[in-house]
């Protein structure tokens, strides 16, 4: 019985589904059908199995789940009937794919069907195998397919050839088995077999070099002959497409010739004639002809063709480019990209046409053309090309602006002939599409401006003008605000006027106006506002008469809901109110930013650590880290905050006065450490300076990032010493702990130690920790005049028979205790008590006499590269510590 003859229920179901007016109705119908099919499946109904499966396929196409029908496919495939098998295989291809386990069950049926006497059944099996075979099936069934390649039936042959393609794509190792039969297929006359054979050869070339060499030797002549025959063949109605015989075969064989001729002068030599013939004789008024020409050009570009042939190919592309059909123009642009590596000059000739394509209304064409223009730019044509692109930026569609802006910026950065041109172009881009400019691009601009002292006046005036017309472009606003803050007096006093620059009169209050507008503008984000705030602070020093007004603006921001802005406003307000004497040196112009550092940073900007210590890195560019000296202790906190404000990687002021100590000592701190320096405040810095060589971790000594206890860590594990985030830092600076005096005292202690070593009280040593494998003893010393401070010498002994490596001791103390760990004497602990590690801890008990010392400890080490961890609590400290 034919399941699809009219009146059967498949048709009815489709009708019922089509009659549904709403999605809910459709779901109801489908649910009902699925229920019926499930019931039939569970009853193992055989009569309607194929019809049910056909229905399931339709339901599947509508997007409903149909996995419960998968086993039905296998049952149908196993049946002896052709119609049932046919539906079974169809279902197999639609409802399953190569990843399903069920598919393994079908391998045996496939094997039987591949060996079936009925050629139609063999065809079905080949088709299914070709469409869904997995690597395992490919291995299992490759011999059958290989045998079928020798079949006399062309229908089997072509299917077997395509099936082989799938097999070698899944298992490239099998390529060698197929080279011989594949080469044989090229001698066939049947177009279907030929096209499948040619494709098989092409895939073999990709899959294995051995096959490539074999086919180059045995098939180069064959492929040339196929191309010659098909292109010279008289009118063949069966294969004719708009006057050309079988363009598909043309294209496949041209592709194969490209594989064979690539990098092989001899094979290419043979191909020259026929390629020239195809390139000149093919009609180009229909799509089919153009498809052949396109493939032919690609082959000419791909092989070692003669220069004459290459000129011919480039000319075809030129013709394509001026074609009115968008499809043809698209492929021309695509191919010119490839041609550029072969003959850049020839491609350059079409520059103006390509540039027009950038402005096409079709996004596909624009995208290709833009890629191509980007390739075409060089030192000589960068100026006119950039002008064209920027002009177009004004009128381009919104969704294209991002791509276009990125490319223009990249071109400007790469090829700018001088700084003035660079700045001019960047300002144009910022004014047109500032919202699409990436952060690193405008950061780079600021670095350049900072380095071009003769152009700073011009730049700040241009920015001021641009800001009047495009106040909505975020990154323009940022750059402008920064420059006005830095070079405000050049704006007002017209310093460094260039030839041809229009006159402009800006008063001090005008300058403050624009920055205030940026601060208040509704579209400004927190970064822009923060930058505006700094800029205002700087202007208060540049333009003393406006100080009062700026103070008011800043006062207003003190009530900002954004914590960052609020905090800065309070700090800046304090600077203006209370620290007039140091304000001018604090707000001096930024030191010149070092371009090479910036470039390096840009390269490494993908590092994860980058976001954490932006500030430190940025400040360290140009001048070494600005470390406030001890004298400037009071002012240092706001300064540190100033540096912190650059939460979005903005270069900010650093007081040059504070650099000298650093310069003097010539300390070259690693950037990680420098960020720690910035974070924890003045006293630490001093300590850090003097204790060069200790690990950066100790900078965290005073940063109370733990609510219950302050944790100190020593050792050389970098992860422990990672600096806190910028935000966290800002808060810490405020906290009273940060100004704790202990490190300074420690330092002084070191000095006083020598003179007052006599009257030390003594304490008994204790065993602080003991386990089967590890023993820790503490010995105590007190320093005279400092009853709160105890030096603990910890000594670690390994009781086991294995050496410990990467030994790390950590300790935590209650809040009222401050702890300082010196580096350990070693991180390797020999086995069986054969030596020990010592480490000095300095403990300050701020509530001496009221509360006793307590400590929680943790020891991490490796035994035979296995991580081990031990922890414990030390409660047996002697009285009086």
């Amino acid at each position, binding site marked *: 019985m034919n399941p699809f003859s009219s009146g059967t229920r498949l048709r009815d179901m489709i009708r019922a589904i089509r009659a549904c007016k709403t999605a809910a109705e459709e779901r109801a119908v489908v649910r009902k059908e699925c229920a019926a099919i499930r019931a039939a499946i569970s009853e193992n109904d055989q009569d309607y199995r194929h019809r049910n499966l056909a229905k399931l396929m339709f339901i599947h196409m509508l997007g409903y789940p149909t996995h419960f029908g998968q086993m039905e496919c296998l049952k149908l495939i196993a049946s002896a009937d*052709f119609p049932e098998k046919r539906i079974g295989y169809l279902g197999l291809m639609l409802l399953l*794919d190569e990843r399903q386990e069920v598919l393994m069950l079908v391998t045996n049926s496939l094997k039987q069907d591949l060996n079936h006497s009925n050629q139609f059944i063999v065809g079905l099996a080949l088709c299914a195998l*070709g469409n869904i075979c997995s690597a395992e099936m490919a291995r299992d069934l490759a011999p059958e397919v290989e045998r079928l390649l020798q079949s006399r039936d062309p229908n089997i042959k072509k299917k077997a050839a395509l099936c082989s393609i799938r097999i070698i794509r899944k298992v490239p190792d099998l390529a060698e088995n197929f080279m011989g039969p594949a080469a044989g297929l090229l001698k066939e006359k049947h177009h279907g077999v030929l096209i499948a054979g040619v494709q098989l050869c092409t895939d073999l070339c990709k899959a294995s070099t051995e096959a490539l060499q074999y086919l180059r030797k045995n098939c180069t002549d064959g492929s040339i002959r196929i191309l010659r025959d098909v292109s010279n063949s008289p009118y063949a109605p*069966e*294969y004719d497409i708009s006057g050309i015989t079988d*363009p598909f075969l043309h294209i496949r064989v041209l592709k194969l010739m490209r594989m064979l001729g690539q990098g092989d002068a001899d094979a290419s030599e043979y191909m020259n004639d026929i390629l020239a013939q195809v390139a000149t004789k093919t009609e180009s008024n229909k799509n089919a002809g153009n498809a052949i020409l396109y493939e032919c050009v690609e082959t000419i570009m791909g092989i070692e063709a003669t220069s004459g042939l290459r000129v011919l190919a480039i000319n075809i592309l030129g013709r394509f480019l001026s074609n009115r059909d968008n*499809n043809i123009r698209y492929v021309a642009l695509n191919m010119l990209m490839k041609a550029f590596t072969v003959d850049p000059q020839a491609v350059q000739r079409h520059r103006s046409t390509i540039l027009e394509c950038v402005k096409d209304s079709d996004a596909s064409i624009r995208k290709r053309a833009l890629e191509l223009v980007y390739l075409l730019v060089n030192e000589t044509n960068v100026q006119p090309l950039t002008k064209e692109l920027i002009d177009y930026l004004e009128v381009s569609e919104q969704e294209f602006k991002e791509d276009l802006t990125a490319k223009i910026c990249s071109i400007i950065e790469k090829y700018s002939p001088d700084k003035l041109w660079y700045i001019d172009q960047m300002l144009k881009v910022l004014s047109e599409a500032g919202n699409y400019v990436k952060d690193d691009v405008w950061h780079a601009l600021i670095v350049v401006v900072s380095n071009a002292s003769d152009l700073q006046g011009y730049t700040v005036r241009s920015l001021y003008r641009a800001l009047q017309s495009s106040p909505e472009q975020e990154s323009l606003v940022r750059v402008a605000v920064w420059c006005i803050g830095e070079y405000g007096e050049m704006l007002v006093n017209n310093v460094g006027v260039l030839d041809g620059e229009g006159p402009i009169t800006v008063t001090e209050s005008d300058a403050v106006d624009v920055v205030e507008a940026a601060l208040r503008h509704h579209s400004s984000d927190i970064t822009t506002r923060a930058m505006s705030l700094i800029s205002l602070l700087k202007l208060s020093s540049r333009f003393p008469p406006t100080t009062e007004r700026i103070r008011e603006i800043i006062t207003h921001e003190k009530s900002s809901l954004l914590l960052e802005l609020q905090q800065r406003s309070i700090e800046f307000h304090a600077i203006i109110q209370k620290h007039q004497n140091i304000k001018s040196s604090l707000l001096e112009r930024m030191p010149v930013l070092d371009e090479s550092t910036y470039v390096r940073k840009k390269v490494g900007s993908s590092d994860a650590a980058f976001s954490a210590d932006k500030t430190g890195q940025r400040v360290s560019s140009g001048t070494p880290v600005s470390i406030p000296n001890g004298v400037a202790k009071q002012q240092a906190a706001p300064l540190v905050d100033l540096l912190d404000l650059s939460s979005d990687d903005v270069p900010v002021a650093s007081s040059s006065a504070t650099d000298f100590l650093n310069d003097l000592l010539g300390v070259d701190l690693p950037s990680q450490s420098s960020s720690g320096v910035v974070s924890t405040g003045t006293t630490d810095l001093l300590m850090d300076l003097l204790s060069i060589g200790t690990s950066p971790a100790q900078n965290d000594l005073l940063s109370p990032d733990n609510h219950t206890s302050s944790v100190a860590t020593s050792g050389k594990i970098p992860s422990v010493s990672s600096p806190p985030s910028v935000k966290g830092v800002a808060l810490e600076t405020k906290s009273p702990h940060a100004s704790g005096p202990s490190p300074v005292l420690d330092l002084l202690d070191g000095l006083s130690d020598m003179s007052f070593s006599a009257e030390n009280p003594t304490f008994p040593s204790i065993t602080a920790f003991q386990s089967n494998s590890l023993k820790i003893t503490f010995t105590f010393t007190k320093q005279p005049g400092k009853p709160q401070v105890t030096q603990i010498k910890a000594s670690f002994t390994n009781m086991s028979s294995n050496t410990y490596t990467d030994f790390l001791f950590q300790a935590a103390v209650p809040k009222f205790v401050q702890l300082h760990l010196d580096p350990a004497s070693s991180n390797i602990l020999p086995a069986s008590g054969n030596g020990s590690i010592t480490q000095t801890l300095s403990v300050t008990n701020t509530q001496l006499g009221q509360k006793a010392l307590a400590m929680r400890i943790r020891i991490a080490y490796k035994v035979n590269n296995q991580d081990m961890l031990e922890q414990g609590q030390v409660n047996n400290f002697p009285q009086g510590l």
Partner: protein
Amino acid sequence: MIRFILLQNRQGKTRLAKYYVPLEESEKHKVEYEVHRLVVNRDPKFTNFVEFRTHKVIYRRYAGLFFSLCVDITDNELAYLECIHLFVEILDHFFSNVCELDLVFNFHKVYLILDEFILAGELQETSKRAIIERMGELEKQE
């Protein structure tokens, strides 16, 4: 290589979907939705090629039906465009003046024709007549 073939109407209903690369069901639905969105509103004057993820969709519209082929980025776009047309001609011949309803009610036959035309993501037969004859022979087997 052809990664998948989609036949969708203007409302985005899938009339035929053939995948030559394995994809999750959910991914297939997503792909069908995205491809429809890409092609349905394009200006007829625009190219028939749209870049889709890391591949390219070659599509052609016949009345209310969109035929879309997803192919490798390096494949010959013009050839696949011609390929779509050949497929449509075959359908037209087979159903004598094909319309969307033919494809809905005889979806399984459309799949069978496709299996004679394209296999393993590659072109199998370029002769319209050969495919129609083959279909006739297969019908006779039933």
